[in-house]
């Protein structure tokens, strides 16, 4: 199920909230678990088994790690077991198709591709369960005795399908004992609405613009149209993803959980290093804590340091999708980060702010281009069009038409990409309140039109 749909907003969520708040404290986790399973089963009922399996493995690992407290070797074996199982799950269900086609391409073999559908959220929950075992091994957290609590941690629907990647240590206390306040409930509620607006009003409309432009003959679009397209995509991906995180964090708050923040205005960054401190923060810190630092981080020789950075970014790329373009995308950022760290970072800092913003945005946008297309040739053609190297025009009527059409959406995207703090006074709070209510009604209108597809059978 997705948050931005009529069944979720008007049936699932209200029913869940009523039950969650009606039942006594002891039963709240059970209600949360049952609804999370329904939420998950909505699309892929069979894959619940996979999630249950992954949870069971790491729950038992936690118990074993505690039992073998004194034996380093046994502890190590348990940890290796956890990592192997989780990575195996990911490899089979997420990467097998990619691995097989790559092998076939290189060796000229014809191993058949099982074409397994990707289990929803697998990239998120395997990372969560893995981090739990690692943390217990490192002694950072106490193991969880109660399987119900552990399974709730893994399957909790707000963050199940699109993050943030919540670590066990972040919410271990809240799992067994959390306080629900009206204060928290309503601030979570408003946060959820904000995410919903971002997703339905901004991301979806930017997506529409991108889908129109990307369906043109890319070698022939004008320079400005190509920029408009990729900027629309950049907004789509940001508001989609950060909207989902807002909704997750919002629901979490309503229920009494404090999930980590995931986005901090990434498009105002002045360097790529800064961008990755602001974008999908729960993922970057995950890789930092569980890959980069264990590999030695920066406290080793320069060569090893460079190796560590490249490994982290190769994996970050691969985590986003099982295709070459994602690997290129990850390494692209790895290399820029190395350049900023070792070559021109100091110089960059001395440049005027405007220049640093342009520098960062340009590289981010080109990054999204690599992210957008699985076919490397299309990426190349698109890039050439962006710089007028396909013999394409600089300006065409399409650019003017679609810019005027989307002027309001584009402006809103720019405004909401920048932190703007209003001084709170009565007038502004009244305006905000009214705006929220109007936007909510508008969101319903957009969602309801989803199935509104006049069927023109008398065309024939």
């Amino acid at each position, binding site marked *: 199920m997705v948050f931005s749909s009529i069944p979720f907003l*008007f049936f699932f969520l209200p029913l869940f909230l009523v039950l969650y708040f009606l039942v006594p404290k002891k039963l709240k986790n059970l209600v949360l678990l049952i609804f999370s399973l329904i939420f998950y*089963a909505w699309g892929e009922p069979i894959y619940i088994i996979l999630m249950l399996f992954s949870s069971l493995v790491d729950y038992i690992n936690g118990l074993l790690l505690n039992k073998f407290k004194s034996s380093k070797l046994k502890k190590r074996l348990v940890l290796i077991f956890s990592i192997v199982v989780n990575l195996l799950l990911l490899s089979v269900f997420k990467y097998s198709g990619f691995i097989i086609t790559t092998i076939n391409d290189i060796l000229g073999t014809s191993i058949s591709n099982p074409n397994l559908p990707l289990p929803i959220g697998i990239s998120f929950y395997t990372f969560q369960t893995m981090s739990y075992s690692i943390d217990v091994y490192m002694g950072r957290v106490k193991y969880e005795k109660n399987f119900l609590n552990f399974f709730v941690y893994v399957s909790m629907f707000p963050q199940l399908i699109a993050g943030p990647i919540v670590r066990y240590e972040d919410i271990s206390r809240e799992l067994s004992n959390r306080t629900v306040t009206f204060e928290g409930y309503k601030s979570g509620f408003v946060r959820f609405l904000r995410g919903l607006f971002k997703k339905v009003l901004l991301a979806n409309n930017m997506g529409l613009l991108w889908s129109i432009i990307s369906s043109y003959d890319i070698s022939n679009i004008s320079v400005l149209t190509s920029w408009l397209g990729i900027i629309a995509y950049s907004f789509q991906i940001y508001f989609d993803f950060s909207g989902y995180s807002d909704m997750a964090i919002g629901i979490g708050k309503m229920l009494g959980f404090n999930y980590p923040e995931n986005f901090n205005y990434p498009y105002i960054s002045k360097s790529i290093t800064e961008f990755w401190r602001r974008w999908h923060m729960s993922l970057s810190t995950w890789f930092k804590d569980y890959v980069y630092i264990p590999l030695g981080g920066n406290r080793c020789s320069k060569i090893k340091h460079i190796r560590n950075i490249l490994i982290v970014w190769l994996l970050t790329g691969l985590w986003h999708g099982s295709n070459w373009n994602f690997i290129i995308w990850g390494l692209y950022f790895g290399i820029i980060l190395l350049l900023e760290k070792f070559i021109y970072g100091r110089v960059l800092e001395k440049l005027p702010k405007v220049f640093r913003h342009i520098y960062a945005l340009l590289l981010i946008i080109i990054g999204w281009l690599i992210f957008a297309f699985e076919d490397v040739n299309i990426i190349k053609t698109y890039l050439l069009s962006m710089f007028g190297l396909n013999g394409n025009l600089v300006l065409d009527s399409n650019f003017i038409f679609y810019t005027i059409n989307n002027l309001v959406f584009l402006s809103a995207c720019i405004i909401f990409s920048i932190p703007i703090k209003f001084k709170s006074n009565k007038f502004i709070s009244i305006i905000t309140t009214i705006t929220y209510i109007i936007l*909510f009604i508008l969101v319903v209108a957009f969602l309801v039109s989803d199935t509104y597809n006049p*069927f023109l059978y*008398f*065309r*024939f």
Partner: protein
Amino acid sequence: MKNTIITIIVSLISIILITLMFILPKATFSDNENRYLEKLPTFSFENLFNGSYTENLKNYTTDHFPFREQFISLKTSFLKLIGQKEINNIYIGKDNYLIEKYSNPKNRDRIIKILNNFSNSLENIEIDFMLVPTSIIINKDKLPNYVSKASELDDINYYYSNLKLNNIDVYNALIEGNKKYPMFYKYDHHWTTYGAYYSYVEYCKKNNIKYLNIDEFNEKKLASDFKGTIYSKLNDFTISGEDMYILNKNNNLTVKYVYSNRITNTLFEDKYLDKKDKYSYFLDNNHPLITITNNDINNNKKLLVIKDSYANSFIPFLTNHYEEIHVIDPRFYNLSIIDYIKENSIEKVLILYNINTIDSDTGIISIH
């Protein structure tokens, strides 16, 4: 305080909508969209596991959402308000024109091959081919500013230059006619009766038939509130509809809807005039096979029309010149048309399609 009020009001709105969803009666058919709305799916493990149960449940709740039509109007009004000129593949044109966006053809070469094969197997039979453009190139000047040029005319000409049929090009006639009468509806994707008339004149010229002048027909206004398919795509409540005319000439006809066993003496069905779908007035919407006999003519001329719905308002003009007209809609007629032609000793065929339909039609690709 702010958060409290937002939380309470949004929750209240939601509760009201949920309650209404349960108590309001559910429509089964949407006139506006011309389709059946999703039914409440029946649960089975099979449906659950293949994902269709949840998908249908989602469509069901969305289809039957309270004030659904109003919400859709609201969305359209909002998009218009913020200056969008392209909504749901419709251009919001000048002078209240709504013009459907042209999408590039996908099956062009495939269809050309099919039609050429079709004509190869029908030696000695004269086959005319009329490919009708749409409003987007005839009402070019009504498009919003900066809309890039549609390739529709190039695609029509591509068909004409690659088909081995007798082409009847109506583009210039429609451009000329559009100066006097509207050739296309503003709120429906079909041509008007006038558009059909101007193309009929073109047809007659090509076939050396003495065509009737427009003043030889009775012009009759059928409706002033026609809101067709293009209206439906927007559901814009500010639109009140447009005029619909016919050009009529009394003939003593026998019209036989072969597969529904119905015989009547008119090509026009008044019952549709009170409904939304007014274009079905012509030839009772679409039927697999219709035969039309003009009892006032004794010229032994037989014509077979293979067509989409554009022909429905065009055929009435032809009845003045042929003793017998057979009308086949390949979308609903699955038998061999070649056999039909031989069995009924037909010597002349007209294939009439609109450039959009010909590419998306499921009938023409199985024509045999």
